[in-house]
Every structure is written in structure tokens, then in C-alpha cells.
């Protein structure tokens, strides 16, 4: 009896294809609705535990400093507080833009880069090393060197996963998760007591400070108290670079094609393996850049505790998914999550709502966003209704 060869089960659409489809179908509505739905559910939990969701969200809003944008001239102390909050929010937005782009670029190629955290750390470590040790260099050269090497470090770290995927088909989710933890423990070693990058105080597991001349200039706010640094322009530039590379270069075309359907791409003559490697490497370079900018822009030093508690790489996943892996979307999603993250953990007035509770609210919203986007929940709903109404054929063949 001729047993049918163990034909692979109908694979369904790749994640990249699904997200691209969402983007074409729904435009701006699904991301907004997804975010709102997530906030709504968060608000329900707040309500269920005896707090007022309206004042809570208003407290978070105040904490983000976004209110500064419609200027409150009559309350100078509040205005400066809102300005300070907004500066911090934008600092986080800078980081999240880049880590979001890292995840987004890989997604475009059909790869899930969960390793943003590790790539970020590696970039940060390298930037700290260059920033502390090569004190003699002139400012701009020093900054450039640190940032370029940080970017390359992130690219190399992700490149390991890309190489493994290309050469032996190792699942990038597994390899990037492993690399994450290797980077974390490496960071703990390097900045720990007795580690090679540990600072001058022997009992503190914290790195040395990067020298004054390598720090990115602050253009808004007080430099001593973490004002907004020029890294935000680099992040905006990265958004542009992302857009151009993905949409206007051959590489981007190949990456997208592989993302939609690797078999069709191979049939069309595109080297799938080469693109897997390149996509991961470029993806990692964004995350490494984020680490470099953070180190030179406002961290200036990093400790073992910081290594363990940092989570911007993971927030980047939510950012990319909410932004549907597009340049504009990632930028806006980064602002949303940057505001949410800062507003809940630092900016919020503790008398309104505890920052510890609010910070966990951010994690919940993050989880819900990731979940809803992953399941195209709203797209299925919207498309299902439009289809019924207009009697259109089913979506994507057997997909839905």
C-alpha cells in the first residue's frame, strides 16, 4: 500500500504574511483597536481589584508627560514636571523604537527574533567598554567608534542565530532565547565584582562611567538629570533607514519575499539562507545600536542588577507586533509603549496608584497586545463580518 509520504501538514500562512495581510486589510484601525482592547482589559482588572481605572489611567497619562504637548502655562511647577516626564518618556521611546525595529526587520523575513534583549546588552557592553577605555580619542570619533562597534556587536550576536538557521535550520526562537541568557550572564560577569569592566569601587558590581566627551549631547532638559539626548534623532533616522531598506532596496525585496514564502522565493532564485543570515544580522544591529545609544545617551554605566532587570528587548517584541512591523507603526508603537512604561513605573504619582501595580499593568497590556496581534483577533472579526456582509470569498484559501 502506498502510504502517502509524510506530507508536511498544510503550513498555513507564515507570520510575516499574516501580519502583512492585516496591514493591507485593516490599515490603522486594528492596531488602535488592539491597543484599546488591551487597555480596556487592563482597566477591568484595575476595577476588579478595587481601584478607579479612570484616575489610574489619568495618573499614568500625567506620568508620561504627554500632557506637556498641550502646554499648561499657568502651573509652572507642573509644567516643568510634565516636561521632565516627557523627556524620560522620549528617552524610552528611543530605545524601544530601535529594539522594535530589530524584531520587525526579522519578522519581515519570517523570523522571530526574541533575542533583542541579548543583542541590546551586547551592544551596551561594547559601548561601555569603548566609552570607558579609549578616553584619549576626540569626542565625535569616540562616539562614532563606540556606536559603530555596538551596532556590529549586536549584528554579530544575532548573526550567530542567523548562521545556525541558515546552515542547519536551527529554529531561531530557540537559538535567540539561548543567546539572550548567555548575554545576560556574560553581562553579569563583566560588570560584576572582579569582572573586566567593573568600575573603581570594588564592592559595587557596576561598570565604570563612560568619559564625559563620549556622552551624547542633551538638547532638552538638564544633562545632570537625564535630559533628552540626540539619540532620538538616530532612532528616527533608523526608522527611515528601515523603511528604505525594506521597501526600496533589492535586499529588502528579497527579505520580504522570503518572509512571505521561502519556497517561492527559492524557486525564484533568491538565496533563502543568505537572507536568513542577513535579516538576523541587520535585525541584531538595530538592537545593538539601541544598547550603544542608551549607554552613551543616559545610562553612562551599567551594573549587574541592571543586566538582570532590563526588559527593553522584550518590550520591543510588543512594539513590533503592535506596529505591524512597519516603520511608521513601530515608531508610533514605541511611543505608546515608552509612554506606558515610563508613565507606570516612574512618572505616576504614588498617591494615585502604586507604581509597582502600574508597572505590572504594563506587562499585562504588553501580553494582551502580543496575544491579540498574534491571533489576528480583530482582523478575523472585522474580515469575517465584511465577508458575510459582502458575500466575499474566504480569506487566503484555507487560511481562515
Amino acid at each position: 500500500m502506498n502510504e502517502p509520504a509524510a506530507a508536511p501538514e498544510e503550513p498555513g500562512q507564515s507570520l510575516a504574511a499574516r501580519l502583512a495581510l492585516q496591514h493591507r486589510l485593516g490599515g490603522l484601525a486594528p492596531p488602535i483597536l488592539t491597543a484599546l482592547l488591551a487597555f480596556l482589559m487592563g482597566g477591568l482588572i484595575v476595577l476588579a481589584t478595587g481601584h478607579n481605572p479612570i484616575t489610574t489611567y489619568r495618573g499614568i497619562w500625567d506620568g508620561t508627560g504627554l500632557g506637556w504637548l498641550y502646554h499648561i502655562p499657568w502651573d509652572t511647577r507642573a509644567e516643568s514636571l510634565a516636561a521632565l516626564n516627557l523627556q524620560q518618556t522620549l528617552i524610552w521611546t528611543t530605545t524601544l523604537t530601535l529594539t522594535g525595529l530589530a524584531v520587525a526587520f526579522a519578522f519581515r523575513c519570517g523570523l522571530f527574533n526574541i533575542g533583542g534583549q541579548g543583542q541590546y546588552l551586547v551592544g551596551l557592553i561594547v559601548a561601555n567598554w569603548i566609552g570607558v577605555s579609549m578616553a584619549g580619542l576626540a569626542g565625535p570619533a569616540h562616539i562614532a567608534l563606540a556606536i559603530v562597534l555596538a551596532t556590529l556587536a549586536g549584528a554579530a550576536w544575532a548573526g550567530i542565530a542567523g548562521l545556525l538557521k541558515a546552515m542547519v535550520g536551527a529554529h531561531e526562537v530557540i537559538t535567540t532565547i539561548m543567546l539572550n541568557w548567555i548575554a545576560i550572564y556574560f553581562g553579569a560577569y563583566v560588570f560584576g565584582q572582579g569582572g573586566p569592566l567593573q568600575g573603581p569601587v570594588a564592592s559595587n558590581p557596576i561598570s565604570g562611567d563612560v568619559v564625559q566627551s563620549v556622552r551624547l549631547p542633551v538638547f532638552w532638559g538638564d544633562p545632570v538629570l537625564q535630559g533628552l539626548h540626540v539619540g532620538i534623532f538616530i532612532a528616527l533616522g533608523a526608522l527611515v533607514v528601515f523603511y528604505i531598506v525594506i521597501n526600496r532596496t533589492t535586499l529588502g525585496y528579497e527579505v520580504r519575499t522570503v518572509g512571505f514564502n521561502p519556497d517561492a522565493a527559492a524557486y525564484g532564485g533568491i538565496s533563502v539562507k543568505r537572507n536568513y543570515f542577513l535579516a538576523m544580522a541587520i535585525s541584531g544591529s538595530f538592537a545593538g545600536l539601541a544598547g550603544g545609544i542608551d549607554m552613551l545617551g543616559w545610562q553612562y554605566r551599567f551594573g549587574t542588577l541592571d543586566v538582570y532587570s532590563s526588559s527593553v528587548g522584550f518590550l520591543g517584541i510588543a512594539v513590533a507586533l503592535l506596529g505591524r512591523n512597519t516603520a511608521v507603526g513601530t515608531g508610533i508603537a514605541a511611543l505608546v509603549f515608552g509612554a506606558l512604561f515610563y508613565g507606570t513605573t516612574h512618572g505616576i504619582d504614588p498617591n494615585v496608584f502604586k507604581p509597582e501595580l502600574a508597572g505590572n499593568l504594563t506587562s499585562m497590556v504588553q501580553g494582551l497586545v502580543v496575544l491579540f496581534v498574534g491571533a489576528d483577533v480583530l482582523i478575523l472579526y472585522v474580515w469575517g463580518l465584511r465577508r458575510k456582509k459582502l458575500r466575499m470569498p474566504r480569506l487566503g484559501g484555507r487560511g481562515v
Partner: protein
Amino acid sequence: MTAGAAGAVGAGLRSERAPVYVGAAGIVLGALSFWVTLPPVTARYPAWPIVLGAAAAAAGAFAAWRGARRVGISAITVGVLGAALGILATHSSVSNLVQVFTWSSLLASMFVFATPLTYAAIGGMVSERSGVVNIGLEGMMLMGAFWGIYGAEKTGSWVLGVLIGMLAGGLLAVIHAYFSIHLRADQIVSGMGMNFLAVGITGYFFVQLYHGENVGANVPRIPDLNLHIKDVYFLGPTFGHLNLMIWIGFLVVALSYVVVFKTPVGLRIRSCGEHPRAADTVGINVYAVRYGAVITSGLLAAAGGAYLSVGFVGTFNENMTAGRGFIALAAMIFGNWRPFGAFGAALLFGFSAALAFKMQVYDASLPGIAVLINILPYVLTLIAVAGVIGRSTPPAADGRPYKKQ
């Protein structure tokens, strides 16, 4: 005489099975290269681990060259690692080594660390054998840790506490199952969502209910199983006072082997994971089987988390599991999706974690570097998935949503 002996050895080396034996010998040599530097032997010259490690690597290279790739590469790896660790050990003082390598205490530590991994890895194996990838093990473990201790504190019974913890993990698994199976969401994305959700939910309610402080001074704890073998050399201190959950963990491993590989239920699970279309045609309800498997993985991972809080620590800390769920994932992969393999991997990773911690603590002459031992599980898994030591084969339909026709 010598010519004859050399001839015999040469003939032996050219035989079929020789490479495997040589490779196995290499693995033993590699392990020896580390072991000789430890108490009770405590060799102090780095020459010892270097020579033994080199011999191991040579044996491994020979074996690999002659076709026994798996054994050969393993021997090289063990040789290099063993030599490196051996050299590290020679730099440490003898008293420190004695303190770190009190074997009974080290092994007891190993079990403590390995048990949550075991539960979660077995759970992950069940889920993936049915075809659903579950990287939300970390989140489910965390839910079990928090709600387990919450339940134990509220009900005054550790049994109910563990059950409540398992229920919480199961609920999270139901969400993951619904999104992955019914909505055919990307399973990895859904799993990551679980992890974020769990961090948020447990952290939120920890602050809300306990103000982020200790859960209570007298929470009922999972008891130890006290065997009366205290005076039995080595076995006594190691196995005499292990927690009940650790013993149950051994049972879970054995049970999972029996169920998944020796019963019709297990056959159904595995067929859904290898070829769901065929399973469907034979009348198996793929959806139901997958739901059951995912929920089981949630229950088990949460049980592992409950052990951590109700069994070992006695309270909850935010993000208590600290990546153990991902190590469990690594253990499952490293163990090639088989129960005893996953268990062995969990023990290995538990050992390396226990070792890393002890070395960090006791070794002032190697400050900081001991923390790097923690990367061992992850590096080993990378090597495993790189297919260097044989193929790493997940179930064929793992991660692919199934659509009933």
C-alpha cells in the same frame, strides 16, 4: 611480540565498532580531566586536566573521523569543557574546593534546582509531542509559584495550595491552547504573550494582596520525605531529606514515559504531533487531544513553580522563576523530546546551576568568573540544535496549526 601486539591493536582500531568505543573512552577521559582536580583526588597541576582533556579530544576526533560522529563530537566537547573546568579548579584553593564539592550537598542542591525544570520540561514535552509549541512554560511556572503560595496561605493546606497553583497554570494554558488551536495563532507569539501576561498578573496581585512583602510567616510547606538512611555513606545525606515534590517529580518522569510511549493515549498524542491529518482520518479528535496536552503542560509547569514557592522558598518574589522555564525548554530540546532525556538534561542543568552558585559564593580567588558557569545549559543546547551531536528532531507537525477539513 610488540609487533604482534601493535598489529592486534591496529586491527582492533580498524574494526567496525572501534570508533564508538574510542569515542566513549574519550567522554570518560574528558570527565576524568575535571574530576581529578576535585576532592578527594585534588590534583593541583594544570598539566593533569590539560593532558586528559587533550587525550579525550584526540579520542573524540578519531571517533568522529571514523564515522561515530555523535560520540566523537561529544567526546571533544566533554574533553574541552572538562579541561577548562579542571584548570579553573586548580586555581582555586583546596579548602574552597572542599567547601564547594561537598558532593552530598551539591547533589541535594542539584535536585532542588532540577525539580522545577523537570516538571516543566515533561510538560513541554507532552505539549510538543501533540504538536503545539509551548514557550509559555516560564509564565505558567510563575503562575503556579504565586497562586500556589497564595492558595497555601489562604487555605492553610499545602496540598490545596499546590492544586490551586496548578489550576492557575492550567488556566493560562487554556488561553494559550485556545489561541493556538482554535484561532490558529502563531504559537510562539502566543507563548510569549503568556509569559508577559504571567509576569504582569502575578506581580500585580502580589503587590495588591501582599504589598510586595513576604506572604506570611507560617505558610504550610510541602514536607520533606525523611528516609531513615541518614548514616548510609553518601546516599544518606543526598537522598535522606529531599522534598516530597522532588520524589513526585521522579514519578512524573517515569509516568510520562509510560503514558506517552506505552499507552493508546500516548499514541494518540504522538500521532497528532507527527501527522495530524492521518490521525484525524482515523477518528482521533485532534483538537481535543491537543487541548488536553497543552493543559497538561500548564498543570505540570505550574506544579514545578509551586514547588519553588510552597516547597522551597516559602514565599513569593516578583519574577521568581527567573528564566527557569526557558532552561526547562532547553532541557526538553536537549533531551530530544523524550522523558528520560529531558530528565537527564534537567539534572545536568540543575547540577551546573548548583555548581555555579557554590563557586560564585566560595571562590574569592576567581571573583565573578564563576557566574559564567550558568551559561552551560544554554551553550549545550545551542550545540545540540546545531545538530552537531546528531539531529535534533522535534515532532514533525510541531508548531503547525491544524485545520480540520
